[in-house]
């Protein structure tokens, strides 16, 4: 029983309909209903004034770590889904590198059930490629898809065995799901803690060279081409990687690819002083790489923005750099970072941002949403593009605070998150 909501007078930006105009959006029984020209608003609809605000298809993040089961001190599915809602996300895809890993239909069912119970953002499970994320044999892909998995990945670890990756790309085609890969040749990078370069040499930290990522990007593209399967490359961070994806797309290879907000706006310089909140995998890279990732985002080579939300408990990051875990939280800062440091700097327009943060993620992972067309699910994000705010990690809805963006002044903030016609967050 969802209420009837009329979002009145907002700037509706929906690239799926090439729409960017001030109009009303009517949500009835969990779906978008055509509002027409001023008429047809039911008398019992709740009218929400959206003048001065932007109304878009709900944001979708295809790459988050919710830590449940196994590491509930960092995040739970409920707190992660609430954090997503607070960041303007209506759907998130949960990575399977939990303890135990999500590698069978029971695990997938657990994530689905916890997500329903949380009743915030929609939570879609992603299953493992291999049993136990061990890189050995294929997990129960078909049964996991039956139980609700929307993709497979061994994220957190790459698939080192090229033969296994080939099998995954072939097998997944029956079920129409993407195979997502964390591209990294760990024989080149396993000991590394940051980008390899003059900075790692100065700090005396082992590095992860660009080549460790590039080699697996190249391999995955070759295997996608060989098999006809859909490869989804996660958190792309290198200039050669972006260029190879661009060329593969031009050849018609079925590849989709992510850029994360931090790889769009931060270089390895953020590590100075051994700041563990700037430690993630792939690492922050050089200015040249950041430029390439930005150009790749603008021209659509990197078609999806995904946060790689990776919560860690504060005392896990309170350690010497080499001993701290990889990852940062991202759900509650993504929209503000992208608006402030990507859109307002003129790299992409608002419509392209929504394409990268909603429409394309929905298409790539075959998820409901990503559009406000008549009949679509009533997943809507409303944000104020001009609200100036300062990132205060202590105020995060997420259980964790590990962000390099603490204290940043951002312009643009979510105001209302609606999932299935129900308001799950408002400010």
């Amino acid at each position, binding site marked *: 029983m969802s209420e009837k909501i009329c979002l009145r007078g907002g700037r509706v930006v929906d690239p799926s309909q090439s729409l960017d105009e001030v109009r009303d959006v009517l949500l009835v029984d969990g779906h978008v209903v055509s509002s027409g020209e001023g008429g047809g608003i039911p008398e019992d609809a709740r009218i929400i004034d959206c003048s001065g605000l932007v109304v878009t298809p709900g944001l979708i993040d295809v790459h988050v770590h919710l830590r449940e089961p196994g590491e509930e001190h960092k995040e739970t599915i409920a707190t992660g889904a609430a954090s997503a809602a607070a960041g303007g996300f209506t759907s998130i895809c949960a990575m399977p590198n939990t303890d135990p890993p999500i590698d069978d239909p029971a695990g997938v069912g657990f994530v689905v059930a916890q997500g329903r119970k949380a009743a915030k953002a929609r939570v879609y499970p992603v299953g493992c490629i291999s049993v136990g994320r061990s890189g050995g044999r294929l997990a129960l892909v078909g049964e996991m898809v039956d139980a609700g998995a929307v993709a497979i990945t061994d994220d957190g670890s790459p698939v080192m065995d090229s033969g296994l990756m080939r099998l995954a790309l072939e097998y997944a085609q029956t079920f129409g799901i993407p195979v997502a890969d964390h591209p990294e040749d760990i024989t080149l990078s396993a000991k590394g803690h940051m980008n390899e370069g003059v900075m790692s040499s100065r700090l005396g930290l082992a*590095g992860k060279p660009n080549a460790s990522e590039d080699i697996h990007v190249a391999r995955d593209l070759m295997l996608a081409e060989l098999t006809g399967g859909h490869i989804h490359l996660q958190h792309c961070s290198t200039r050669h990687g972006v260029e190879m994806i661009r060329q593969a797309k031009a050849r018609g290879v079925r590849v989709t690819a992510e850029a994360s907000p931090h790889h769009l706006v931060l270089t390895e310089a953020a590590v100075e002083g051994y700041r563990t909140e700037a430690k993630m995998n792939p690492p922050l890279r050089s200015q040249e790489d950041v430029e390439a990732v930005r150009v790749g985002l603008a021209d659509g080579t990197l078609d999806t923005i995904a946060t790689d939300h990776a919560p860690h408990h504060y005392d896990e990051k309170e350690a010497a750099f080499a001993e701290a875990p990889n990852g940062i939280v991202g759900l509650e800062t993504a929209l503000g970072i992208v608006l402030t440091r990507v859109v307002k700097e003129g790299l992409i327009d608002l419509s392209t941002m929504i394409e990268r943060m909603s429409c394309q993620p929905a298409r790539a992972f075959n998820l409901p949403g990503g559009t406000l067309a008549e009949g679509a699910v009533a997943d809507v994000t409303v944000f104020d593009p001009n609200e100036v705010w300062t990132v205060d990690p202590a105020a995060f809805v997420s259980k964790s605070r590990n962000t390099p963006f603490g204290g940043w002044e951002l312009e643009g903030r979510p105001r209302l998150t609606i999932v299935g016609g129900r308001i799950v967050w408002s400010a």
Partner: protein
Amino acid sequence: MSAMALPLGKDLVGLEHLTSEQILQILDTAEPFKEISERRIKKVPVLRGKTIVNLFFEASTRTRVSFEFAEKRLSADTVNISASGSSVVKGETLVDTARNLEAMRIDMVVMRHGASGAARFLAERIPSHVINAGDGWHEHPTQGLLDLLTIRDHLGRLDGLKVCIVGDILHSRVARSNIYGLRTLGAEVAVCGPRTLLPPMVEELGCHVLPHIEDAIQWADVLNVLRLQLERMESGYVPSLREYNRIWGVTSERMDAAPRDILILHPGPMNRGVEIDSDVADGSHSVILNQVTNGVAVRMAVLYLLAGGQPERAEAAKQGGEA
């Protein structure tokens, strides 16, 4: 004591961010302290009543003993904690270890730790003075300082000298402290060794790269020869210790071709017959044992300056005044 009164600041975590004035101040302060170790009664009351913890998460004999002599000869009260048998092996975090020590009201911590950045991490979290006795591959500032002092003792200057560091630069905190300290004081620095053991883009740290030891010997006024650890061979950085000696070993045959006298340093412990041959290590150009002697004086100087001592008062402090 106010921060203004501390010539080095609160801590010594590395040489990279010290000015040439600060480095020279330490070296100059070490001079009067050298004499204490030559006395019959090797003790002065400079740090009387100060409590110092030597916190060694990695095994160390030379550095720990050198610090302990420096502390004891300045009359500090010292406690040694080593990783084995301490709460560290029981899973206590570095922060908790530090906070517990702090709660016992200490004045200084001398720390050796396997992780780069560990000394800075500790220094940012406790009010006590922190002296880095080696953090991962990052820095070993007192070793760098004793190398600088030893070179200056023998050659009378550092500015304009050519110093080549030979061996495993990649994993060496000694190399980094040498590079930063030497360059700040105007020396030219080169590194020589197999490319597998040089840090990526080491040229951008301001070093020449000399692939062949013969070239290094032609070029240098000083060779600082680093220890090649056995595990570097085991993990494949070099195929064998014998081959390493054949290609990069500092041998007397190679030294005979030197166009000038070359000062030979080695931070120890030496692998005789691997990175350095015995007749070079024991030869007339070797100042390896002078380095060890200078180590105690340099560490006294650092302890004295961090405790608030003024460089110009070091001589007077020795006579019985407190720091």
